[in-house]
């Protein structure tokens, strides 16, 4: 039996993706990496979790293996499986195994969505043993210093029945992401989308106004991503009100009464 690796969606970016820190997350991440500790990032949607991990991978010069978890994701999707071709069966590494074999960051996005059995394979890897036992091949891989496990999830969508077990949670260094403070978020928006400072500032005011209605009127607060998207439309010449409707308001609710009321807030900022 031969053991082969097949190529995965690995990103080794040549440029470091732009990321504006909102606190001391960069230092904490670097120290966690130096000390071989896994990291958990939690925060609402579109607050820069993925961007941060991409940034850190590039900054540390590590390959990044990203897995978006879903409720059908099983342990063998992470670890690997036997496949068949004309010459017989062969073993194919999953993204987790690849990262452990070759070094790099394995980033599990939305881990809570994954099936319970997947978190079990993470246990031996995320404590000080740092080993990945592959029972199918009988291998026991020891993670090199360049390997790092990063998981993220959005506490907002926490299911009643889903959620991380305390024994899993307590293995990670945890970073809580929120929305950046207004001035900083304005800079991020201006930098990402290339709009002027004044427009960026208005968009951030809008975002924060809409955020304070979350829970009552909205399922989830608008993230930086929506604001950046609206800013990009505006930078490309779109009327701000049209851009805000298309890139923000309609993304937040399907209820026509709510979108109408949200537009009142948009006009409070972008009305002539």
């Amino acid at each position, binding site marked *: *039996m031969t053991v082969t690796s097949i190529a995965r969606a690995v990103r080794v970016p040549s440029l470091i993706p732009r990321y504006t820190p909102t606190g001391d997350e960069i230092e904490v991440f670097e120290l966690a990496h130096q000390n071989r500790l896994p990291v958990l990032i939690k925060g609402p949607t579109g607050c820069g979790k993925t961007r941060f991990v991409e940034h850190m991978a590039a900054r540390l010069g590590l390959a990044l293996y990203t897995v978006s978890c879903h409720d059908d994701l099983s342990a063998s999707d992470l670890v690997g499986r*036997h496949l068949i071709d004309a010459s017989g069966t062969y073993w194919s590494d999953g993204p987790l195994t690849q990262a452990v074999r070759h070094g790099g960051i394995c980033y599990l996005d939305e881990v809570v969505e994954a099936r319970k059995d997947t978190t079990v394979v993470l246990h031996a890897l995320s404590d000080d043993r740092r080993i990945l036992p592959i029972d199918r091949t009988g291998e026991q891989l020891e993670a090199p210093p360049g390997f790092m496990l990063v998981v993220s999830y959005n506490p907002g969508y926490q299911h009643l029945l889903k959620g991380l077990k305390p024994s899993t949670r307590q293995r990670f260094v945890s970073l809580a992401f929120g929305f950046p403070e207004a001035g900083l978020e304005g800079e991020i928006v201006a930098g990402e989308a290339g709009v002027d400072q004044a427009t960026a500032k208005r968009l951030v005011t809008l975002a924060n106004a809409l955020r304070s209605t979350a829970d009552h009127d909205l*399922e989830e607060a608008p993230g930086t991503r929506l604001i950046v998207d609206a800013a990009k439309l505006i930078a490309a010449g779109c009327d701000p009100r049209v851009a805000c409707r298309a890139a923000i308001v309609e993304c937040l609710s399907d209820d026509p009464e*709510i979108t109408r009321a949200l537009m009142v807030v*948009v006009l*409070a900022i972008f009305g002539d």
Partner: protein
Amino acid sequence: MEEQVGIAWHRLISRFAARRFPEAAVLLQDISRDAALLFRALGGDHGVMVQAGAQSSHGARRSLLERLAGSGFKADLAWLDRQALRLPPLVDVFPDRQLNRDLYFWLAALCAADPRPDQPWLARNQAAVLAVSGDFPGLAARYGRLVAAEIARRPPISRMAPDEARQEQAIRDALQKPGSVAELPAARRPPHPVLLWLRPELPAAGKPRFGARPEPASQAASALQSDKKRRMAEHAEMPERKGGLLLFRPESIFSWTEYAKVEHETQENEDQDLARAADDLDIIAVAQDSKSVAKKLRMSLDLSPAEGDGSPLEGNGMLPEWDYRSHTLKPDQCRVNTILLADALPCALPAHLKRDQQRLRRQFAALQPLRQRLKAQPEGSEIDIDPYIRHLAHRSGAEGGFYLDQRKRDRDLACLLLADLSLSTEAWVGDGRRVIDVIRDSLFLFSEALSVSRDRFALYGFSSKQRSDVRFHTLKAFNEPYGDAVRGRINAVSPGYYTRMGAAIRRAAQILERQKARERLLLLLTDGKPNDADHYEGRYGIEDTRKALIAARQQGLRPFCVTVDQEAHEYLPHIFGKDNFIIIRKSSELPARLPLLYALLTR
């Protein structure tokens, strides 16, 4: 003929005098949802609702026309109190519809911002205008147009006495250049009301106090004794008497009382303040601290004297209640009396539900219970590729489970249905049916459906008569079978009294918590807000219910509310959370929809 001319003249002159534009009118009900969201977006409290405020008398000089027409004593102003954001019920003061609409949004924004509520009227409003227009350019632009229209609407300076002209000029300067006027020049009369600003002195006094010395007050008692003054502030919430029971009472009474009690407690001239406020507001107030006054009112509001004081009740198993004003969970506040309906006669399912019953039985039997995929089984309906390949790879015959099997998973859940049996369920919903009939049918069909799906369930109903008598009707306990005896009890439900929702939820949670099930659903069926015949009203009831639900969630229960109250979107998101309730638009559809809703919820 002469009389007709007289009437026509009066109409004409009233219209001129009022300077109103009915063709450009905007109604609060049409924009209240938008205004509420804007209010929250600008930082307003999620717990307050948008409601029509009473008119405030302003004491300013009236125009000749107004004096001829005998009108213009009062103006519609906006303010925020602990209960609600009070906006005019209708705005028609500007000739342009858009301006009238903008005035609503402007006032909602101003109430949300209001950075200096402690300042005198003039300074406070200028600060609020600056705060809003600084952050919200769209509103600032509208404010500019509103100021122009407001100044055009105001009485001309040229016809004023010198002192009043100075005062008016200061107001106009403050409107046009907010922040520029430090003090209001004294004048014999208060200024003409400013519709773009918040009402002077929140929230008690109707008559503006402009930072000048307090006026001499009349006696609190005499103010309240006079029957002519027994007018209510809220048209929308006029009390209705049905069978000697007060159904709804104006929340303003309570906001006012709470205000009087909470905010004025430390003031020395409390009596005077109370009296003046009562006088000016033209409403009765329950002045809790002033004993003689309070007694009179309690009589008229059917309150027994001991109820309002919040002292703990004697006995076992009393339930606590959350007081949002003091942020405390007060122990032993409510007595729950369990009522068994023992004398209800057993009966069969009413004939008019037979067809629904058959349909539901089919639907619920066909509703496939959740299936689970079991991997690597020795037998099953599909091949499990993974172990098979593993088997080929290792060329070993040891592993035998190559199949995927589907198995029914047990629906391990318990549901407690809690039905609101308050007096408001006596209201008619059309087709000669009342809300209570709809609730009764819902209970029947719900039970029919669940007895097919074999989910464990219990049925309870509740109403209340103040905190010492929360009535909790057992219709079906968890361990009871659903049969004619239970149907008899459902058949016997009738409208009770008030809706002390928090206590009922706490009791229901206690019962449901004892059930051992993976998922435990607490389903509340209601037609309105929490309320009771004491201080349990408005915001107090809402916050208490919210706290009871937070506690239930912490116990691992899952609360969900089904309501037929079309206004529920104003308060249910705050109480239950955005996705934990549903408003049934046509209440007659509730019986048929409830079981399906349940199926969706527990899928």
